[in-house]
């Protein structure tokens, strides 16, 4: 083409662009108000993708639902979601990027990635609602002014577990934990809370998140003759624990799992082996088992039905975290608008917020707002959850 032709075609293109921009700007102003931005960082791929997947799906589902209903006070929600690939470094970079763009962030998915970003959000004065469990995410509270979390603390889970053990007369336990942030934090709480509950930890074993066999650890625990075993991990290793426990003929010793086991897929993967496994679980997993007058029944059943209809897979604790963080962020945006400092204050003063994981009562001292009473002790029975006695 000649230079002249090229020049002409370029100006046509440029003119078209300008026109389009003007049109978009005009129509945007006419149709809807400025969108409210919510930032999200989830581990959509990588080792913790089983957390990030349902979180991503839930957050997007809620966004579409609210936008269809006309948004928050007429403002549509814009969800800026980044994948940290279960890598603390990438999570840190993602949050650094988001704090410049959004007034509130939900996520990250894991304790490890959350701890890697609390400093960034704190420094930038942007409220961050983590979906992970470790209590270190929100303590010490003096340096966690802007950090909240919607997952119950490990100490609640351990407390619930020990309460059940005491009822069963169990005093000697063997514990096995995975050597990542989740396992290390669980191990710390188990060892810390055991003495005050009159429980002795007689074996303390660890393993890697990619391990293919746990029979050595289980065998070592067996030699110390505990009355119960606690396994604390997420992902495939907790199924390995069940399989090995069953195969080694150790099923006479009850097996407790952490709340990480709270996904029906785990029961399917472990097959019949999972029968009798006990764990403290958030109520979001067991909506149909709850009494009709339970305060959480309604929100849980609505979420469960919508999620299962759209994605053809059972709900999990993790999607529930995304629901809680997303709805808290939206409640704040609705009440105070897109102002980071006001959102922070609103979250800190939120009381009686009924979510998927319990009734949240935040305060200046407690940025989690849950307690062990927000958990139920369940047992795997006939391939499904049942309330434990």
């Amino acid at each position: 083409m000649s230079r002249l032709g090229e020049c002409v075609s370029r100006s046509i293109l440029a003119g078209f662009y300008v026109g389009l921009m003007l049109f978009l700007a005009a129509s945007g102003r006419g149709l809807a108000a400025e969108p409210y931005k919510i930032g999200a960082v989830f581990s959509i791929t990588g080792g913790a993708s089983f957390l990030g997947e349902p979180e991503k799906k839930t957050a997007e589902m809620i966004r579409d639902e609210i936008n269809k209903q006309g948004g928050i006070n007429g403002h549509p929600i814009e969800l800026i979601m980044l994948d940290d690939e279960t890598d603390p470094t990438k999570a840190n970079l993602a949050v650094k990027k988001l704090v410049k763009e959004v007034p509130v962030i939900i996520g990250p998915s894991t304790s490890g990635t959350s701890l890697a970003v609390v400093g960034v959000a704190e420094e930038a004065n942007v409220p961050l609602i983590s979906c992970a469990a470790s209590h270190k995410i929100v303590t010490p509270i003096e340096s966690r002014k802007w950090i909240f979390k919607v997952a119950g603390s490990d100490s609640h889970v351990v407390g619930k577990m020990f309460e059940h053990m005491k009822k069963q007369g169990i005093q000697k336990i063997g514990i096995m934990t995975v050597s990542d942030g989740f396992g290390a934090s669980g191990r710390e709480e188990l060892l810390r809370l055991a003495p005050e509950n009159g429980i002795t930890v007689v074996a303390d074993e660890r393993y890697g998140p990619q391990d293919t066999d746990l029979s050595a650890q289980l065998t070592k625990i067996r030699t110390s003759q505990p009355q119960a075993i606690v396994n604390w991990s997420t992902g495939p290793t907790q199924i390995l624990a069940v399989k090995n426990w069953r195969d080694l003929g150790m099923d006479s010793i009850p097996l407790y799992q952490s709340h990480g086991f709270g996904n029906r897929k785990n029961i399917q993967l472990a097959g019949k082996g999972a029968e009798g496994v006990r764990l403290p679980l958030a109520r979001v997993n067991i909506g149909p088992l709850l009494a009709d007058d339970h305060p959480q029944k309604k929100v849980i059943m609505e979420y469960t039905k919508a999620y299962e209809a759209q994605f053809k897979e059972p709900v999990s604790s993790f999607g529930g975290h995304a629901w809680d963080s997303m709805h808290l962020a939206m409640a704040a945006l609705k009440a105070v608008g897109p102002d980071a400092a006001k959102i922070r204050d609103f979250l800190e003063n939120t009381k009686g917020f009924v979510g998927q994981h319990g009734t949240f009562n935040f305060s200046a001292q407690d940025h989690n707002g849950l307690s062990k009473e927000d958990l139920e002790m369940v047992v795997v029975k006939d391939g499904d959850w049942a309330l434990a006695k």
Partner: protein
Amino acid sequence: MDSFSLGSALLQYTVSGLTIGVIYALVAIGYNIIYNVTEIINFAQGEFVMLGGLFAVFFAQSLHLPIFLAFVAAIGLTGLTGFAMERLVIRRARSSTVLSLIIITIAVSILLKGTAMFWWGKNPYSLPPFSSGRPFIVLGAAIQRQAVWIFAVSAIVVVCLTLFFRRSAYGKAMLASADNPSAARMVGIPVRQMVLLSFTLSAAIGAAAGVSITPISLMEYDRGALLGLKGFGAAVLGGLGQFFGALVAGIVLGLAESFCAGYLSSGYKDAVALVILLLALFFKPEGLFGSREAAKLKRF
């Protein structure tokens, strides 16, 4: 409380160590086959193990084939993947240096892992064991039925490979291509075909390991890397290119890990393989069974 003695514990550690050890050995043998013919260290070897397991899940659960057919089909399909890898990637770059080829295998491993993630998603998958039933209890230690199958599969692989390399014309031709490619070409051995065969064969062996281990340890898209690393450790420890060495080193590695978890701290289990690998590289870089003279002649 069950009566469980320290002797039973020792036996249990040994059984667990042996089970995982022969899997490492199979992965190491896969490295060796390709290394012998091409001097390439194929870092996609771990992904073959993962693919074997996941293909078997596909055949057994989506197509409802009986487990043995699924086993064979998964090995065949993974072998085909190895075939394709050589034909489509390695052959095109055949004039590159060995180092570039090794880097190419890393790229292939990332590609395979990514494809597996898209295809199967990120959840782990399980297979039913080859034969069902309670584990055997020997002197208080439990031996899973699947562990027996793993030993059987490994034994069959080792025997077949030995026969293949010692007796068959193809096997001998492969060894000849490894010893001296130019001389082999001169006596009429199609060296390229031997390279192709080596990739296919080692992919198939990796897949056999993958299918056998899936009923015990599940399989997901990113399991390949760690198994590949441990297998590589075993291959180096046994002396690169040594089949018998790989078998012994794999078992040594498996036992060391298991005993470390049992008697020291389970937290250090994964470090054991790497420490052994480093020690081997410092003090006996040619491996337990490699010869020092031969090692000097090799570039890697």
